[in-house]
């Protein structure tokens, strides 16, 4: 099926989300839509899927113009979509989820579950998905849930499959498997539309790359183009992907975690006997797939949870028994992983949010009375210092973009003298420009002599920032490696999947991911980004810990 979008325009009030977009999806090709968050990718796909009606332009399927009043009609025309947030019912089985909405009916109006199971089995076998039709969706890992979504689309005879940010929730290994699935689909003649803002993945798998910026198609690129070229197309200016930072000059280990165990409400150890040190002037990154105890670890440092055993020593003081207020008072800066729920109060003004955790400080309050003038003056300083793009500091913080909201959180946490900075997912959902800024500020804080803990599920971010990397898996630290050039993406990926350090090194030496291969190809083709320090382009398979030459190594 050949699908064309001709001059698609979609407005929300005064905002033009899509502005005359022309795209053609050929049969059997993987077409990547690359763009920053908020560039209009998802809007475009929602138009295509019938969720939004375009204000202009048309959708042409095999030469005939079509309009889709809803997803039902889009599905009937052969368009399937896997949303970023899965549309599955957790307590239903795989088979029930797959047939939901077009259930096969047996005699007496009952759902023909046997047929549903057969359908799942057939598709699952055809692509080697290995999905049990009778498993409950809530019991399945995220990667498998995604396959269920893909089966759901294929079971409705989708000829064009839209994947909206499919790798956001996956481990590196799962991402690798997904890339394999995408290639299989392509061979079977299905077109895949792959929406992402991750440059490496695009280069690994796409046949055609269309870059969207501010609602317009600003160009097409080839997978052979370098990441730097793609990134500058995406953000409209050249960006330095790597964080420019001097080597760490670590001092004393002023923050020490000793034998820390944290239990959840059911009594299960979510942080299990964890010990590590962070030294002054170094960034320790805690890597790992979401849900392996990182959240609980950071919440325990802040005092939101109580440790059931162990100590958190900051300059010799145990933070364990302290309240959140006392921990903040002790000089801990905390950037929560979800800024909208934990970091900011949406209806409060930017100025109020900037003093949220120090509103009682004599700097802003006297005799229990806040001084609006001082709060506003502080806001004016921070807005300038952190380049927060805001109309007025009295506007609600919810009027800011995600990147500027995150800058508000950072500005607040970094505006007091810190003895420890803990930042969880500091750049989640941010555009490239904001990521760059946030990274620079974090490195600046490190250079000021503060011990810094970064928790991130993004390997790119971990590699860009970390001086040392600790990988968490099921509540334990499975291994700690040095950051920078010494860190191997494959080794870290395996450790994130629970393989201990030594074994991970052995396995990584003999195994190359699709992403790494694409890097190699590009590295060979593009001398500009080829690593200078790695003379042999192909890694010697015999050597146990040869770093894979890739552009990432430069970070």
């Amino acid at each position, binding site marked *: 099926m050949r699908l064309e979008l001709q001059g698609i325009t979609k407005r929300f009030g005064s905002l033009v989300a899509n502005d005359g977009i022309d795209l053609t999806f050929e049969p059997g090709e993987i077409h990547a839509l690359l763009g920053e968050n908020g560039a209009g990718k998802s809007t475009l796909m929602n138009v295509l899927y019938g969720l939004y009606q375009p204000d202009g332009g048309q959708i042409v399927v095999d030469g005939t113009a079509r309009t889709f009043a809803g997803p039902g009609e889009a599905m009937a025309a052969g368009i399937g979509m896997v949303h970023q947030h899965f549309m599955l019912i957790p307590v239903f089985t795989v088979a029930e989820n797959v047939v939901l909405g077009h259930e096969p009916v047996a005699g007496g109006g009952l759902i023909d579950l046997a047929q549903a199971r057969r359908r799942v089995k057939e598709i699952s076998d055809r692509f080697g998905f290995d999905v049990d039709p009778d498993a409950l969706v809530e019991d399945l890992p995220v990667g498998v849930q995604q396959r269920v979504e893909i089966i759901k689309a294929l079971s409705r005879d989708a000829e064009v499959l839209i994947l909206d940010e499919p790798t956001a929730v996956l481990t590196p290994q799962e991402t690798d498997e997904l890339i394999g699935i995408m290639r299989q689909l392509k061979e079977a003649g299905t077109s895949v539309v792959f929406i992402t803002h991750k440059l490496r993945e695009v280069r690994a798998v796409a046949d055609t790359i269309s870059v969207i910026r501010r609602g317009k198609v600003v160009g097409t690129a080839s997978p052979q183009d370098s990441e730097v070229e793609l990134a500058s197309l995406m953000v409209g200016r050249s960006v330095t992907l790597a964080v420019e930072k001097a080597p760490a000059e670590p001092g004393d280990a002023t923050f020490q975690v000793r034998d820390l165990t944290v239990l959840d409400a059911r009594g299960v150890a979510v942080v299990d006997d964890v010990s590590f040190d962070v030294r002054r002037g170094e960034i320790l990154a805690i890597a790992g797939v979401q849900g392996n105890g990182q959240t609980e670890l950071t919440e325990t440092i802040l005092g939101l949870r109580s440790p059931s055993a162990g100590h958190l020593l900051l300059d010799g003081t145990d933070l364990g028994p302290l309240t959140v207020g006392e921990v*903040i008072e002790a000089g801990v800066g905390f950037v929560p992983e979800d800024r909208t729920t934990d970091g900011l109060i949406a209806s409060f003004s930017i100025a109020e949010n900037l003093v949220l955790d120090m509103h*009682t400080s004599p700097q802003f309050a006297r005799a229990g009375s806040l001084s609006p003038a001082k709060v506003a003056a502080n806001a004016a300083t921070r807005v300038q210092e952190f380049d927060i793009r805001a109309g007025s500091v009295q506007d609600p913080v919810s009027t800011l973009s995600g990147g500027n909201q995150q800058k508000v959180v950072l500005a607040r946490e970094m505006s007091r003298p810190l003895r420890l900075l803990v930042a969880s997912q500091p750049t989640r959902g941010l555009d490239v420009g904001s990521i760059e800024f946030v990274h620079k500020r974090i490195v600046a804080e490190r250079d000021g002599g503060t011990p810094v803990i970064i928790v991130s599920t993004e390997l790119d971010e971990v590699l860009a920032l970390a001086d040392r990397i600790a990988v968490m898996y099921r509540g334990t630290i499975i291994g700690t490696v040095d950051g920078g050039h010494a860190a191997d993406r494959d080794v870290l990926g395996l450790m994130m999947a629970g393989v201990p350090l030594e074994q991970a090194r052995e396995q990584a030496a003999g195994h190359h991911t699709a992403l790494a291969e694409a890097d190699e190809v590009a590295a060979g083709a593009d001398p500009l980004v080829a690593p200078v320090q790695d003379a042999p382009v192909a890694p010697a398979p015999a050597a146990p810990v040869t770093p894979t030459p890739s552009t990432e190594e430069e970070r």
Partner: protein
Amino acid sequence: MTTTAQAPAPAEPQATKPARERGSYLQQVLDSSATTIVVAIVIALVLASLLVVAADPDAQKALVYVFARPSDFFGAAWDAVYSTYSALFRGAIFDPQASGARQIRPITETMVSSVPLIFAGLGLGIGFRSGLFNIGAQGQVLIGAAAGAWVGFAVPMPAGLHVIVVCVAAAVAGGIWAGIAGFLKARTGASEVIVTIMLNSIAAYLVAYLLTTSVLRQPGSTRPITPPVKDTAVMPLLLGDQFRLHLGFLLAILAAVGVWWLMERSTIGFRFRAVGANQDAARTAGIKVTTVYVLVMLVAGGLAGLGGAMQIIGTDKTFQASSAGSIGFDAITVALLGRSRPLGTVLAALLFGALRAGSPLMQTAAGTPIDLVLVIQAVIVLLIAAPPLVRELSLVHWAAVPFGYDRKKAAA
């Protein structure tokens, strides 16, 4: 060479800007909550007038031959509506038929009726803005009134001091009563909605019981009523013996200013609002959410208790089970109508005070049942809960469409 090309460029935005701004200004005014509330009140009065017409005997008779002589029906309908609302006005605001200073007596009555509503409404507003849906003002008013009455009749004290002690006792009693709910929520996570509703019932029966015992009942009386409070405990009148307006009204205004300072300027109020808007972020910022729950309930209950005391030492002079009337429940409406803001609460309380003060005259002079007031109150609440419905029913909003008002935009 570029001067000609440059000249129109800066002129263009100047030319289009005022027009766009006027459009958005109109949009802002019509979409504001103040407009919604005013329009809701007007619509409620219009709907109520339909009920007045339907209930009016003359209009009913004229309706039978409405097609033969429509003027009879519309004349009768107009008379009914006019006499109802003019009686309401004369009862609540200004009575031109009275003589001399008594002409302004209705507005002072409105103010008197609004005093307990202002106090209780302010307390509820603090709760709502702090994320606590306190339904227990009725119980807090009752307990505060009972405590105030007891201090008023049972404890002899010099004038001046007595009033102050009565107020403090009422505030403490109301605060503790509400604090129970706050404490239970902080300690056990019990829903404040359910606990405060239950505390209302407990307060009602507790007070009813105490009124049958020697603690509160007047010695020698069989009726469940307390002795009158001592003269030293009575609120000083503001405008002399002709009017019932007492010092409590000024105290209520002062309380409103105090609540404004508390919520908008104080660090405690900052914490209250933070917990109300996003308790996760508040907790992450080091605010003790459970402490805030207890504090909010103490303050809210204290204000409600004061409202109860005002009813006793300002108006009734003695306490019985019906003294609190429906003050606590009306105060919920007042706080909602006032958007939980002090100024809004005072204005809403005055409106409800006016309806309450004017309704007896409306019943006697126009023959309209006093229940009409309840209908008006209910319709106002219903409409302010659904702003889109107000815009749908409002002629003003429809009329503004040709002037660039976008009715759909308001939803966003």
